[in-house]
């Protein structure tokens, strides 16, 4: 393993650790007295520090160390957690993430905020610690070679003269030796802390002829006199924690001795330090051999392992996955082609062949789903990033905000997660800045002064729903309308429904903030959000009720490569329309059809009149007025609400592979992409939202003029 790949591994692990850190901090907010949570946070910071030391990332080590020291005070109950400290921890976590990122990209981190937070953190520490900190800087380098040495530097200068006696029982498992650990080195490390006496317990030593050289039969009892903290001792054993049975007892502090050791050792077993894995470069061996440390600890740590422990994962180059996805897409097309060919043959009595064919279809679909699942990732990291955005936004605006996340584990395509980060950031900022009222105002209204922003993700009927809800004042529709009229976005005479007013927010160049704040309202508005979501094949909608808050809902397709669609015919062409957008299909009864004006047509659907849009005409495929035959598809569109699309006929419902038109040609209005049908022909996938918008152009432009002038150059 080259140095750079170890480095990469370190940063990948840092990301996981930071995630654990954010999660732990959130849990601390709920219950700061839960020592396991505090320990988990401590471990995360500590592991980052340990790894950073190995790469001589001094600033990171220094910051992590200060952070960790304050955490340690909380852990040893010398420091009570209050709201202020919690906020500092959050900010420290953010700063740590920044430092890690800066170290990864090898650029200079923001020294100003780092210094500010360091100062605040140091304020919680006595003078002694700050001295220690200075002494610490040089230490990790000196011990670079041995992974164990990473932590030793920390306790270099003994800070007090008071010696305590620790009784340590150390029972290694065979796995400890199998992983290449050497007890002697551990004892050496302990001996550096103070006078150490070691006794080997040979009672379990078997007869010579039954001796198994790979078994671990010798247990040790150690007595150490040192001024150091118990944590320091645990750190010595950090890398072997899961591989041995360890008991540390302090003779002169019985309270701590009873309380802490089991907690600590268990916490670290749940979370084997990643630096350990990197150092061993053989994580699998460790996982395989972990089970038998002792029945007791195994059962104790098992339930905790499930949600938190490192699940065996495989890191794969994204390109490989994408290639696989493409190939599977071809497979689906191929399967459709074969099906069609066989149908065309009209073989007599081929019942078993159709069965086989059906099985093939299911298999192809299974493979496709499996492959797509590889790309799927939980939205959790995305949501965690938002918690930081909320904090920062709250700080700038001086509002108190609490972020609640629901459905963290909902899985979404990786690309979606990546491309959703910016729009979501924008929306969350907006929710804090514009959505929530000021604390005084909230108190006046009898609301909790802390505003709540709820971020939730869920899977519903083949789509991913992401909601950003605030419990603020709701949209001020009068002001939105006023603003839109002022900016000339709507005519003053326009009569708009509430829904339509809400949707004005998505118009380009719309910003409601009366004064442009630092946070939002920089001209990039909700239209950018809308476009970003639309580019992912999704849509955004708003619901708002005055006084109770606003909810933005983003609906996204589960995957970006395949979708379910109706195969329809329009004029003489075969096209596909996404099923997700269709509410209902109607075979119209001539009685329900009514004309409005010369060109308009509506259908009455359960008492409501819904405008009919002729797809063929909107696409310019047929100029004459369609006869009233055909099928109507009821869709709900962003711009026009409920609309009925007139198509020739519906032929089939099937899964289609989405092929971009833009890669070789360009965007076409009303068409989102293309797909390849069973006969090898290309069918266009319609975009109902855009399709409906084409109406005015189709009506008002004379047929000779170019429908899309912006595409023409000469």
């Amino acid at each position, binding site marked *: 393993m080259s140095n750079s790949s170890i480095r990469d591994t370190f940063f990948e692990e840092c990301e996981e650790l930071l995630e654990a850190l954010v999660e732990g901090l959130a849990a601390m907010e709920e219950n700061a007295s839960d020592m396991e949570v505090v320990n988990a946070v401590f471990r995360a910071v500590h592991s980052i520090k340990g790894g950073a030391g190995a790469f001589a990332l001094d600033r990171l080590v220094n910051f992590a160390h200060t952070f960790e020291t304050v955490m340690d005070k909380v852990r040893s109950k010398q420091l009570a957690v209050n709201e202020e400290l919690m906020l500092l921890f959050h900010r420290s976590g953010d700063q740590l993430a920044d430092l890690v990122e800066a170290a990864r990209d090898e650029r200079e981190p923001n020294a100003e905020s780092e210094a500010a937070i360091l100062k605040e953190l140091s304020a919680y520490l006595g003078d002694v610690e700050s001295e220690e900190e200075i002494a610490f800087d040089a230490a990790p380098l000196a011990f670079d070679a041995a992974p164990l040495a990473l932590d030793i530097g920390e306790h270099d200068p003994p800070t007090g003269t008071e010696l305590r006696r620790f009784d340590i029982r150390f029972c290694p498992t065979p796995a400890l030796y199998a992983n290449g650990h050497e007890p002697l080195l551990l004892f050496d490390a302990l001996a550096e802390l103070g006078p150490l006496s070691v006794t080997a317990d040979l009672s379990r030593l078997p007869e010579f002829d039954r001796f198994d050289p790979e078994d671990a039969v010798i247990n040790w009892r150690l007595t150490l006199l040192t001024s150091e903290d118990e944590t320091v001792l645990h750190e010595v054993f950090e890398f072997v924690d899961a591989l041995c049975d360890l008991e540390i007892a302090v003779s002169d502090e019985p309270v701590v001795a009873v309380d802490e050791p089991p907690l600590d050792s268990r916490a670290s077993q749940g979370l084997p330090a990643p630096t350990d894995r990197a150092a061993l470069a053989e994580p699998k061996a460790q996982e395989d051999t972990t089970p038998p440390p002792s029945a007791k600890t195994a059962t104790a740590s098992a339930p905790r392992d499930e949600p938190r422990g490192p699940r065996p994962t495989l890191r794969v180059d994204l390109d490989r996955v994408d290639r696989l996805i493409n190939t599977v897409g071809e497979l689906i097309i191929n399967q459709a082609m074969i099906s069609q060919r066989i149908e065309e043959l009209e073989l007599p009595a081929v019942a078993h062949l159709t069965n086989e064919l059906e099985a093939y279809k299911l298999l192809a679909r299974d493979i496709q789903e499996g492959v797509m699942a590889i790309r799927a990732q939980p939205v959790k990291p995305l949501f965690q990033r938002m918690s930081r955005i909320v904090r920062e936004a709250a700080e700038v605006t001086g509002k108190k905000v609490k972020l609640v996340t629901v459905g963290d584990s909902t899985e979404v395509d990786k690309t979606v997660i990546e491309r959703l980060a910016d729009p979501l950031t924008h929306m969350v900022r907006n929710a804090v800045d514009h959505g929530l009222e000021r604390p005084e105002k909230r108190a006046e209204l009898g609301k909790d002064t802390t505003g709540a922003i709820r971020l939730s993700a869920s899977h519903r009927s083949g789509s991913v729903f992401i909601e950003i809800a605030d419990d603020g004042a709701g949209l001020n529709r009068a002001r939105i309308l006023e603003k839109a009229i002022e900016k000339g976005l709507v005519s003053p005479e326009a009569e708009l429904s509430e829904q339509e007013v809400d949707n004005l927010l998505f118009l380009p160049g719309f910003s409601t903030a009366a004064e442009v704040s630092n946070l939002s309202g920089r001209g990039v508005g909700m239209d950018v959000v809308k476009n970003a979501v639309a580019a992912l094949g999704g849509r955004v909608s708003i619901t708002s009720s005055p006084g109770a808050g606003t909810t933005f809902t983003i609906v996204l397709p589960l995957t970006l490569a395949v979708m379910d669609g109706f195969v329809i015919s329009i004029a003489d062409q075969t096209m596909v329309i996404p099923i997700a957008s269709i509410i209902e299909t109607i075979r119209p009864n001539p009685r329900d059809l009514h004309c409005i004006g010369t060109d308009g047509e509506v259908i009455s659907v359960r008492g409501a009149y819904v405008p009919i849009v002729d797809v063929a005409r909107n696409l310019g*495929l047929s100029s004459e007025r369609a006869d009233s035959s055909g099928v109507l598809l009821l869709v709900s569109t962003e711009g026009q609400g409920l609309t009925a699309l007139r198509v020739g006929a519906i032929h089939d419902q099937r899964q289609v592979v989405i092929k971009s038109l833009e890669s070789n040609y360009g965007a076409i209005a009303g068409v989102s992409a*293309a797909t*390849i049908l069973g006969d090898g022909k*290309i069918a266009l996938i319609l975009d109902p939202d855009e399709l409906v918008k084409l109406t005015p152009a189709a009506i008002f432009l004379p047929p000779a003029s170019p*429908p*899309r002038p912006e595409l023409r150059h000469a």
Partner: protein
Amino acid sequence: MLDVSEAPTEAQFEFITFSAGDQSFCLEITQIREIRRWTPVTKLPHTPDDVLGVMNLRGAVIPIFDLSARFGLGETIDNERNVVIVAAAGGTTIGLLVESVSEILSVAKSAIQETPDIKSEAARQAILGVISVGESMVRVVNLDAVLDNEGGTV
């Protein structure tokens, strides 16, 4: 792309010549991926006349242009010798419908003459140079110009 000014003097270039709109054109052979028989394409809505539609090329969706219409020489008339030249440049693949493919032309760099100083800017853009073959003149198509102005008539 073919670079007229810098190529070594004696280097041989191979071109595939074809006719479109009763004129003779050619493309450098390295830009051509394959030549296919004309098969009906899927029409695209709201596109200029020279964009015939899209075709399935082994799973990729590629646009097909009528080269004659694109050069303003009128639509290609249906003919059983019509073929689609699949060409690639700069990461995009397109198909060009032409009347017929004639031959492979191998010429030295020196045989390629600069485009005569004609008035039409568009035509100068679209033609890299000309090669004289016997009595006739073959125009070297600038594929980039065809690609750059996607969706518009050159």
